[in-house]
């Protein structure tokens, strides 16, 4: 059976998306695909028991029947951390191996997702390279390429991995269009010269960083005033409406896939946002807009949501939300698969994993 552990030096580099996209693609090619996120760090409550949020999502999206306890055998709870610090032996290695055996059963390939950063879990001797060694699998590194400093990070990751034999290769993710040329002409040859195989260079994609209006409503604990039928519309950016109305409309028109945050009493800014056909209006300070404005928003199919907090705290929350989106929508999964098909050497990966023979 083949397997691969997807690891990254930082959180929010695209591990889950890559696992999901590869999983879908491998299934399409007729392979029986299993998935694990051995160490869960994003704890949520699923029907009374704890689980990892990403793993739970991917299990659903890949249509897997495995128990959550097999997909994520180890959850980073406070107890576990305290025990590890006190040196209590919890038998984590055997839990890991048992779960892996269960998930592997009847499968052609198992994709494993690392926990957070590459060195995460080191205090339990379960950093990504350690897990890979224990399960005798290889690592596929994925890194966001935001600037040339990403190359530094990759070389550091290499030192953490120590035994470069277990590194299958890497993928450079979210490369901005103006850096694509530099990456393909300079960065990729540089890395390959260092013995790192680059399986793909994926350009950035705003849609994947987007969040749905429903997610915003949930995260901001907002009240939906109009537009309940547009909760699945995707928001790629947020803009703050604090300027005079003449500038506001220009600013909003440049980024129509945005949510506009403004005070509930700024009816001029609200109308400018509606005129510019933005994706969502987030009104702050618990100030209700006039019926006339709401009527126009409804007519233009723009959801208006109301939050209690002030504009500043709402901005902070939006800042955290956009770009850290979880993959939930069908359109996003489709886009991920398209991107992987177009920009990743899937055949090369299949060969590397020893599949297909």
């Amino acid at each position: 059976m083949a397997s691969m552990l997807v690891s990254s030096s930082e959180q929010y580099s695209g591990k889950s998306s890559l696992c999901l996209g590869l999983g879908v693609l491998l299934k399409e090619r007729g392979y029986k695909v299993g998935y694990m996120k051995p160490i869960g760090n994003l704890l949520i409550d699923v029907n009374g028991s704890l689980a990892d949020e990403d793993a739970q999502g991917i299990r659903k999206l890949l249509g897997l029947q495995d128990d959550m306890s097999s997909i994520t055998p180890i959850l980073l709870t406070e107890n576990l951390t305290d025990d590890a610090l006190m040196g209590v032996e919890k038998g984590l290695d055997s839990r890991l191996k048992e779960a892996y055996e269960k998930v592997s059963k009847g499968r052609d390939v198992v994709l494993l997702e690392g926990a957070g950063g590459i060195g995460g879990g080191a205090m339990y001797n379960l950093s990504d390279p350690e897990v890979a060694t224990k399960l005798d699998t290889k690592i596929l590194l994925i890194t966001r390429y935001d600037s040339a400093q990403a190359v530094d990070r990759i070389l550091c990751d290499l030192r953490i991995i120590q035994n470069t034999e277990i590194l299958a290769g890497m993928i450079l993710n979210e490369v901005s269009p103006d850096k694509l040329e530099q990456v393909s002409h300079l960065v990729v040859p540089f890395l390959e010269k260092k013995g790192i195989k680059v399986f793909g260079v994926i350009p950035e994609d705003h849609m994947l960083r987007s969040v749905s209006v429903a997610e915003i409503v949930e995260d901001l604990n907002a009240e939906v005033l109009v537009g309940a039928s547009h909760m699945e519309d995707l928001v790629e950016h947020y803009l703050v409406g604090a300027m005079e109305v003449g500038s506001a409309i220009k600013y909003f028109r440049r980024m129509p896939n945005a949510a506009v945050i403004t005070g509930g009493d700024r009816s001029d800014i609200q109308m400018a946002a509606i005129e510019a056909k933005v994706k969502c209006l987030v009104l702050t300070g618990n100030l209700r807009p006039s019926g006339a404005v709401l009527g126009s928003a409804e007519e233009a199919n723009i959801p208006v949501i109301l939050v209690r907090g002030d504009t500043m705290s709402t901005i902070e929350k939006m800042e955290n939300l956009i770009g850290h989106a979880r993959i939930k929508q069908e359109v996003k999964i489709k886009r991920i698969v398209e991107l992987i098909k177009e920009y990743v050497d899937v055949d090369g990966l299949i060969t590397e994993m020893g599949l297909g023979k």
Partner: protein
Amino acid sequence: MLDKLFDPDVIAVIGASRTEGKVGHAVLKNLLQGAGHKVIPINPNVTEILGLKCYADVLDVPEKIDLAVIVVPAAAVPSAMEKCGQAHISYVVVISAGFKEASLEGARLEREITAIAGKYGIRMVGPNCLGIIDTSSSLNASFAASMAFPGNIAMMSQSGAICTVTLDWADRTGVGFSKFISLGNKADLAENDFLELFRKDDSTAVIAAYLEGVKDGPRFMDVARNVTREKPVIIVKSGRTAVGSRAVSSHTGTLAGSDAAYTAAFRQSGVIRADSLEEMLDYSRAFSTYPLPRGKKVAILTNAGGLGILTADACHSIGLSITSFEEETITKLRQKLPEAAGLYNPVDVLGDAGPQLYEHALEVLLADPNVDGIIVLVSPQAMTDVPAIAKSLIKIIKTSDKPILCNLAGGTRIAAGEELLNKHSIPNYPSSERAVASLKALCDYSSIKVKEHTAPVTIPVNREAAQKIIDDAIASGRRTLGLESMGLLKAYGIPVVRSRMAGNLPEAIAVCEEIGYPVVMKIISPDISHKTDVGGIKLNLRNAEDVERAYLTMMSDVKHYMPNAHITGVQVQQMVTGGKEVIIGMDRDPQFGPLLMFGLGGVYVEFLKDVSFAVAPINDKEAQHMIASIKTYPLIAGVRGETPSDIKAMIDTLLKVSQLVMDFPFLTEFEINPLMVMPEGKGCLAMDVRMTLRKE
């Protein structure tokens, strides 16, 4: 069109009430005071109101109903509207409130009744309005406290309260109206429909309006252009300031559009803009009363030196000229006026002047061909017989073919004179400044009436090339275009500076050598709008060393100030000197569409805000007007012996930009900044451009 709305034979009042103090009662009562139409109350709960047989439903009425006035609560309006449709009623006035102005639920109801009206082809006034009045057909379908006097002013207002205020004011001053329309929420019929109606309406000579916005800007301009050639249109548009426009948005759920756009659109279509309700009424009364002056030459007639001087100041500062008289005029004045009298302009008949002196002076002044209009001032001295003077004024004003505007100045002692004027429908302006402003409005309209609106000439351009540049940008997901899209200007025949692009330092040096030193280097990035602020422009580079230093510092500065900016490279331009920098821009106004802007460029432009606006498309006259109306125009035209700039080239560029923004509605923002204008005959060169595309 709309004839039966104002002159219906049969009117139904849906929601008529027996209870005094209710709107449904007031409307019925007002209608009954009219003549020439049958009024039918509709109310399912009673059989008779004010002696009229009451029906439960419009469908029960045997006669064909021409107009229904709806006063039932908002929630009941959709079903009332539906029944009007079934009863084949063509016109409906919805007085009921509680629609978009009130709540979200109200906004939904408004959409619903508008859809029902659309389905049956019903034309609707309102909702949320006071109603309509037509004095010539004796129709008062409103809940106003009084009927308007007959007159030649047609008034429409987006605010019901301003209707009642105006009617009450008119009641005291005796001003009459032909039609009076409360527009309400303008869900269907709006200012454009009524402007067209007023144009054709024989009883209307003057059109006045209070508006918070227009429903369809481009159509408004078309309609107003035609109307203002025949009748003066005076509009007071509220929401001029940021706070005002916020209140408009909150009140109406519309985006008012910029005040600059309204000012430009009004000017271009010949609408006279009043700044206040008072001004609107002042001007309307002037138009309603006086013939139009042939020119701007004013005579002032006064019995007090101080008032005369103040009036002369007011005339001069507003652009009216204080005329010089013919010799004969002065001779004739001298014959009857006291020795101490002022014989030149202002003519001062002195404090003890009686009606005969005023009459004599007025007759002499009217005969002078150098006098186009007269301002008469009367101050109440102990020996001044104000009513007698008023009578003399009335006699002369009634027969004069030149406007004579009066300011009986004071309070108690001029009241009787003022009343006499009012009785003869002649306004007494409470201050000479207001009289002067009204005379100016009359003068302005004289030139508006004869203004020709010629359509802009279509300039031959390479539209396909421009289309390709825009299509390519859209296809590659680019929304802001900069230097790299100068080709768009070239396609429209706008001269651009010689330039080349470079992706890295060696390329940059190569293209500099090719263009020839000295050169200018600019950063190319869709994210950077103010290149100077981030060190993205380097001027006067003289050799390869300069270029290398400039390139490296530019890249490092830009990365420092805007670390997330996407940089595509640099553009190298030939260094151009000896011209003046101007800006040509365009913003798409929510109401009027492409609003062109022209201004002097350079570093002070943002501070001076010395710019002019016009709604595209423009013709050459409007382009010329844009250029000439900035305050710093003398700098372009050449001061102190300086060669004037090439104004023809600027006009040409403005016309091409006008055509470009009309051809490509995808362009939402556009700016050539700077356009380097060379001395007369030497042309101009676009040095930089920035555009924003809309993505649908």
